[in-house]
């Protein structure tokens, strides 16, 4: 590693930071104060703008670095991630996006309180949304740290720690200054950069193999050291039945989790109508689908060009496959082309991380201020004081994520994100679907459903090999891994649905018929939408 690409990458990245800071201050000027503005950006984005912003929020470092790394290391098993990430959007499109836009205002709880008792429901979904966001943030922080290590070579732990801290501080600045309007524009810029960078690399990979996909796959299989097995499922999840079940668990979490992610739900409030929400999702499905198809090419490209061994050697978990691929495609280490391409890709990856972190932090600060503070706080609340709390909450969330991000540095970013999806699918999705579609659903059902999914999901992660008992775990020295699977979804998602049903049928109070009527009519017609 020479010094040139460090300098260039840092310069490009600083450029992105400056541009986004400028956007933040420009769009945020004179508009601060109202919750409508801070959480929903004024609700006047167009479907295309919001579609790019959703794609920007969703295409995280986990996808760009983590999934390509998994494909480079394990071949086909990495593709299983991309399929889950994409198919999940059908759940959002069919069952969630329009109805949530019609019924809600800022957070998940806003949809529910039309027919359920406000206080317990806000507390429950507030807690679960913050939990999901923090896990998601940790994944992004690990990605940032891993990238920085690669960029600065062997300077090691300190560079990494400072990157994690720096990313955290920057995102707090974005959020407190600009709120949702700034976050949306940052996502749009980032989505364009990321798609541009990915397209360029994909074209270069295809050129290297003269457009022959078959040759690409065959070379990847040869250089992976696994032969044809590389192109079929089984290398990562095909061993014993524990790892196979782990995969089903992950698949379930991915496909059901997206619709429960707070930062995705909050994006639907930035457009004026349900129809616009639907069309933003259609835009984002197109963009995200294209992006994942390209990550498949990049993953196999990394295996074919670099060989899986080199990818593994460059960092645990394979998170650095794409930057290394860029270095090679540009002409190799030391060449100008390689340096430039590597720097561009590293800067794009940083931009990705920063933008996603900003979006997630905003969503979690909305949960803290709009759900938890409003219900738990004792003093009289005004909309302005709520926004002030949201800004403070952004800082708090950042601090927690930084702390945890420093702990969990050697895990694959994609598996970490899988955990966030599992928690979202277990705690947030059941209550949302029940509330929108089940006539008899009650407040007790809602509270049980949230905690009944959240507590098992978190407990099983703590007891899983991700936290202890395995070489790459957070606490490798300890062993309290009593739950064999890495992803809790297979157990905790059904538990969340079951608990919601159980709470409802054992509920002493009947369902609120008028509230149900209001939810149903509003969700499907848009009457009375904020």
């Amino acid at each position, binding site marked *: 590693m020479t010094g040139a690409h460090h300098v260039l990458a840092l310069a490009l990245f600083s450029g992105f930071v400056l541009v986004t800071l400028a956007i933040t201050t420009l769009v945020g000027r004179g508009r601060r104060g109202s919750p409508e503005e801070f959480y929903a950006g004024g609700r006047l984005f167009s479907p295309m703008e919001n579609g790019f912003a959703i794609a920007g929020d969703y295409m995280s470092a986990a996808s760009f670095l983590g999934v390509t790394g998994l494909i480079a290391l394990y071949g*086909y098993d990495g593709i299983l991630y991309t399929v889950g990430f994409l198919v999940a959007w059908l*759940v959002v499109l069919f069952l969630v996006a*329009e109805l949530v836009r019609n019924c809600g205002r800022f957070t998940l709880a806003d949809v529910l309180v039309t027919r359920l008792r406000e206080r317990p429901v806000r507390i429950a979904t507030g807690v679960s949304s913050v939990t999901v966001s923090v896990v998601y943030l940790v994944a992004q922080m690990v990605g940032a740290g891993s990238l920085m290590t690669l960029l600065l070579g062997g300077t090691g732990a300190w560079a990494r720690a400072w990157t994690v801290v720096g990313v955290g501080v920057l995102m707090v600045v974005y959020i407190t200054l600009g709120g949702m309007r700034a976050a949306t524009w940052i996502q749009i810029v980032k989505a364009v950069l990321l798609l541009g960078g990915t397209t360029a690399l994909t074209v270069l990979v295809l050129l290297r193999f003269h457009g022959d996909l078959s040759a690409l*796959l065959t070379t990847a299989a040869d250089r992976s050291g696994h032969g044809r097995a590389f*192109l079929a499922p089984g290398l990562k999840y095909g061993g014993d039945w524990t790892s196979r079940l782990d995969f*089903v668990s992950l698949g379930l979490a991915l496909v059901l989790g997206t619709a429960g992610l707070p930062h995705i739900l909050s994006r639907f409030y930035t457009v004026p109508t349900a129809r*616009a929400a639907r069309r933003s999702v259609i835009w984002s499905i197109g963009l995200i689908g294209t992006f994942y198809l390209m990550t498949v090419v990049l993953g196999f490209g990394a295996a074919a060009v670099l060989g899986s061994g080199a990818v593994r050697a460059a960092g645990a978990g394979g998170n650095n496959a794409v930057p290394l691929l860029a270095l090679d495609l540009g002409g190799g280490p030391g060449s100008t082309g390689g340096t430039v391409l590597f720097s561009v890709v590293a800067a794009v990856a940083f931009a990705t991380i920063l933008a996603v972190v900003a979006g997630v932090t905003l969503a979690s600060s909305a949960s803290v201020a709009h759900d938890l503070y409003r219900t738990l706080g004792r003093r009289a609340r005004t909309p302005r004081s709520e926004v002030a709390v949201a800004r403070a909450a952004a800082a708090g969330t950042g601090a927690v994520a930084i702390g945890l991000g420093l702990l969990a540095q050697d895990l694959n970013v994609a598996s970490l994100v899988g955990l966030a999806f599992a928690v979202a699918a277990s705690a947030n999705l059941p209550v949302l679907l029940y509330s929108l579609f089940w006539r008899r659903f009650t407040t007790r059902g809602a509270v049980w459903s949230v905690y009944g999914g959240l507590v098992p999901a978190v407990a099983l992660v703590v007891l899983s090999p991700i936290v202890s008992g395995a070489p790459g775990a957070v606490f490798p020295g300890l062993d309290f891994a009593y739950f064999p699977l890495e992803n809790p979804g297979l157990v905790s998602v059904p538990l969340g649905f079951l608990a919601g049903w159980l709470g409802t049928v054992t509920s002493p109070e009947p369902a609120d018929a008028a509230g149900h009527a209001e939810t149903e009519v509003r969700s*499907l017609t848009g*009457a*009375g939408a904020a």
Partner: protein
Amino acid sequence: MEKHDRRSSGGSAAGTIQPTALDIYSEVQRGAAFREVRRRYRRFAFPAAAAFLLWYLAYVVTAIAAPGLMARQVAGALNVAMVAGFAQFATTFLLTWAYARHARLHRDPAALELRWAVSLETRQDAAPVPVPAPAPVPGVPQARRAGAPALRPRGEHR
């Protein structure tokens, strides 16, 4: 936006108009026009959601339970697993298109009329309505009314 909180302050001084809004929702919910909108939505969304979830789960379970089948060669470097993966992408795009088309053709006009009607009724006590009211909701909502698209806000054109 403050109207959103009216339910939690049920019996307050301003309560005289509050129950009306709730009654309207219940009334609309029982009406034929709304039930038609709901039926159309559910008849598409529920079976389609069940279908793609089953198809996805089948794919995942086959990947872990029958790796031999998935590794079978189809043509060149392509095997069954690759084809199935790309088929998942293809069906996702296809279903997205089908849903959008169904909503645009069979649901949007009727839902927009209902929205219009409900908004007028829930607001009539609070503030005078500046626009002349259109004809009352017809029992059969699928008739597309000429005036309706004028409500489209920014970014709704296609």
